[in-house]
């Protein structure tokens, strides 16, 4: 733990810095491959839609005194086409069938109750009209649209339109990946899954907002100096919030993991598992994208701005691009691919002569530089892990 704290400090001061913004091509490539897989699977394999979307009926019967085959035979005897029969944990058997009428559902419940020696009242039943899932999906899509518009407006006002664009790209990335996982693994999609995906909206943006808030703070008044390009400042922000991002994902994934565990291993299936699975994938993707997709994209968009380009030229002409990684040179296209190891910004402090326009961090760094040599061992190798 204390090691993490120290790394946290080094990340904060820029002493250890992972070049995240500069290596955007690598992250885009990684995400591109996953997205290609996700979209490809969506196109060619499609989604395994639950009965809520296709119409049909689902029954759950206590399975203390019957087997899956008993249940299948009992339902088949009523003349209804059985779709799937699965065990839910140790206590229940779940039977799904084609769409049935109300009268038939009563028959099936009775048949299952007889086969498993329980009362008909103990058999849970769900009958879904074929339009229901469409209704839910359509409403979810409406909600998605409205939410995206509102949140874009908010982000554009609170931050900057380029931040809004980057955050939305990251969001779409997360949602596509999550749906892709469902398609690839052929997990059943239920309304609970839709809820989970919708929650990812909020979470993914929440995560991005926290990172962007730091970027905003670091780049305030950036045009008034010539030591740091926007990309470098953004990279520093990502590094400074790295510990937060990791902690947050762990803290968010723990309860979701608990739901997943309880849902999958104890209950077998149902709302809890469907929800948690979508969330688990989505939160993991959300953390990744806020660091590796949203921020590099933001930096690229920003560097198109003529003022930022002028700044980049000023920084380049000064010949010092110390913090934020050596490889993240000023222009968005200038990826050197070098500096795979975190640079130990020893030189950085030397340049930090507090100018009038310098931000708080530079002042702090200058103070530290003035307060004597650091007796910290440089744990470069450890930080790399």
């Amino acid at each position: 733990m204390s090691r993490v704290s120290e790394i946290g400090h080094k990340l904060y001061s820029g002493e250890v810095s992972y070049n995240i913004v500069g290596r955007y091509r690598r992250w885009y490539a990684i995400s591109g491959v996953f997205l290609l897989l996700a979209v490809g699977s969506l196109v060619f394999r499609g989604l395994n839609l639950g009965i809520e979307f296709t119409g049909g009926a689902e029954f759950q019967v206590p399975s203390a005194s019957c087997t899956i085959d008993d249940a299948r035979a009992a339902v088949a005897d009523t003349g209804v086409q059985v779709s799937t029969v699965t065990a839910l944990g140790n206590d229940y058997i779940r039977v799904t069938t084609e769409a049935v009428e109300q009268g038939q559902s009563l028959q099936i419940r009775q048949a299952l109750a007889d086969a498993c020696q329980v009362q008909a009242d103990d058999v849970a039943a769900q009958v879904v009209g074929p339009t229901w899932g469409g209704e839910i999906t359509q409403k979810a899509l409406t909600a998605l649209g409205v939410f995206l518009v509102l949140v874009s407006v908010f982000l554009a006002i609170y931050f900057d339109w380029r931040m809004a664009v980057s955050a939305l790209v990251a969001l779409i990335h997360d949602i596509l990946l999550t749906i892709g996982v469902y398609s690839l693994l052929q997990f059943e999609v239920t309304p609970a899954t839709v809820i989970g995906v919708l929650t990812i909206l909020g979470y993914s943006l929440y995560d991005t907002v926290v990172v962007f808030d730091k970027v905003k703070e670091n780049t305030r008044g950036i045009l008034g100096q010539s030591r740091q390009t926007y990309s470098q400042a953004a990279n520093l922000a990502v590094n400074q919030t790295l510990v937060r991002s990791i902690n947050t994902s762990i803290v968010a994934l723990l309860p979701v993991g608990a739901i997943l565990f309880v849902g999958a291993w104890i209950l077998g299936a149902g709302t809890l598992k469907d929800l948690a699975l979508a969330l688990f994938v989505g939160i993991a993707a959300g953390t990744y994208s806020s660091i590796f997709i949203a921020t590099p994209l933001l930096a690229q968009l920003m560097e198109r701005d003529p003022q930022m380009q002028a700044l980049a030229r000023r920084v380049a002409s000064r010949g010092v691009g110390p913090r934020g990684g050596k490889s993240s040179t000023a222009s968005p296209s200038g990826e050197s691919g070098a500096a795979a190891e975190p640079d130990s910004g020893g030189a950085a402090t030397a340049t930090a002569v507090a100018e009038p326009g310098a931000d708080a961090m530079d002042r702090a760094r200058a103070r530290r530089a003035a307060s004597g040599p650091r007796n910290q061992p440089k744990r470069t190798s450890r930080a790399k892990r």
Partner: protein
Amino acid sequence: MASPATRYRPWRVLGPFLIGLVLLTVWTFWPGLSNTPQLGLDLQGGTQVTLLPQPAPGSDGTVTNEQLDQAVAIIRQRVDGLGVAEAEVTVQGSGQNSAIVVSVPGSVPQDRLVELVGRTAQLAFRAVEAIYDPAGVDPNAPAESPSPEPTAPAPSPTATDASAAPSPTPTDASSEPSASATPEASASPSPTPTVEQPETPVQAASDDTEFEDRALRLDCGLPENRAGGVPDDQGLWLATCDREGVAKYILQPAFIKGTQVTNAQAQLDPQTNGWSVSLTFDSAGAKALADISTEIWQKTPPQNQFAIVLDAIVYSAPQFIEPIGGGQAQITGDFTTEEAADLANVLKFGSLPISLEVGQVTSITPTVGADYLRAGLLAGAIGLILVALYLLLYYRALGLVAVASLGIAALISYNAFVIFGRQLGFTLTLAGVAGAIVAIGITADSFVVYFERIRDEAREGRTLRVAAEAGWIRARRTLLAADFVSLLGAIVLYVLSIGSVRGFAFALGLTTVVDVVVAFLFTRPVVAILAGTRSFQAGKKWSGVDMARLGVHTPPSRQPAAAAGRR
């Protein structure tokens, strides 16, 4: 430690907050009130039918909120007729985007419930033939079936001149196996009621000899006979009850159908200062009204009355006091504001009935529900413990603050669930439980953001008290922005979605608000108080802001507050 007047005084925030929390908790656990959240059907067991309102065929394709309210009132009446306690009918969303959710706890016959709630209600104006005492003359009034052959309405003034007709075979509703209908037939009830299912109020063609006997046996004292839901063939005679069960009406076939009412409004007569309901009819309706009023207005009561029948229940039976031409009518009487508004709503509903498509029917047995609840609570407990452990390990004493904050947030959320359940009928579903569990992570994240900011400030070389202050000011902005996005998502989901999505969105939104409240009113002052203590300022090892562990090496002169704290 004397402090300048402008300094943040944590106890001034924390004190009232804690007092408020205690009061809230006392209210939640007040003896005699329900002290647990109201559980949704998926957790307590029961049957839930979700109905999707559709504009009736031939209408202009809109569903208004007034119609929805009326549809809900009708369904509620029908469900109450089942005699199930705590049945609940709610509208989710509004207008075209809405759903009506009927929740009936315990075990009810699923098929009968669906049949009952899914049928479209019809409005009709019928001339009154006779009014009797509500009690059934024969107490064992059996359920009987209407005539399967609706004949042309005979405008006969009395019910007694009915001629012989073959008696229909009575069938029992719940035992009737629906043999060969298509699945769609069960999913979407036909918009016009067909004569296939018998109910207690009696319908008959004019030539049905048994009509009067059966009508006499009808007992309006039984609530199920006043619940509606009977298929009302407007071409047939009808014997039915009024809403309160004070009278039994024998009614002629309808002379005006609900769709012929174009508008209805409650209005206050400035002269008499009494409420009345004004009505407008389309041309066919206006003609029918003129004809019938001219014909019967001079007859002796009750035959000069007409009944406003919605869903086969009499809502009002005014007398004609004059012939009404021109398609405008006014119903006056001793109405209260509410009664007049109710009646106007009833009449408006008739002008554009909505049909209800059955979206989903779910039955959960109480055992399965209890299992779900246990699983949800277990998952919540595991999640909470894991998060608490992680926070303690990573943030030490600050982690303790975080865990306490999580506990407070959990307590407030529980209070809110109980109180909302009690006051607003909010029910906690499995999706809601999941939302609350997910919120553990989001709430804990607020503390992570805050504590990391404090550490950042400490790394800048600030003293802890200053760091706690400056860190808060920066974290506050981030928290508000991030929580705003979460809340926005929850609100959009709540407003635009239906079914379990709403329960989830509500829980998520609520816990997001609780998160902000706890961070501002509890975590922040507690951290401020801790930051003022000596051991924290010294950055002891367990404090969570241990300088050595943070990798900061502050010269001794950088700790003036620690020296000041020594007494």
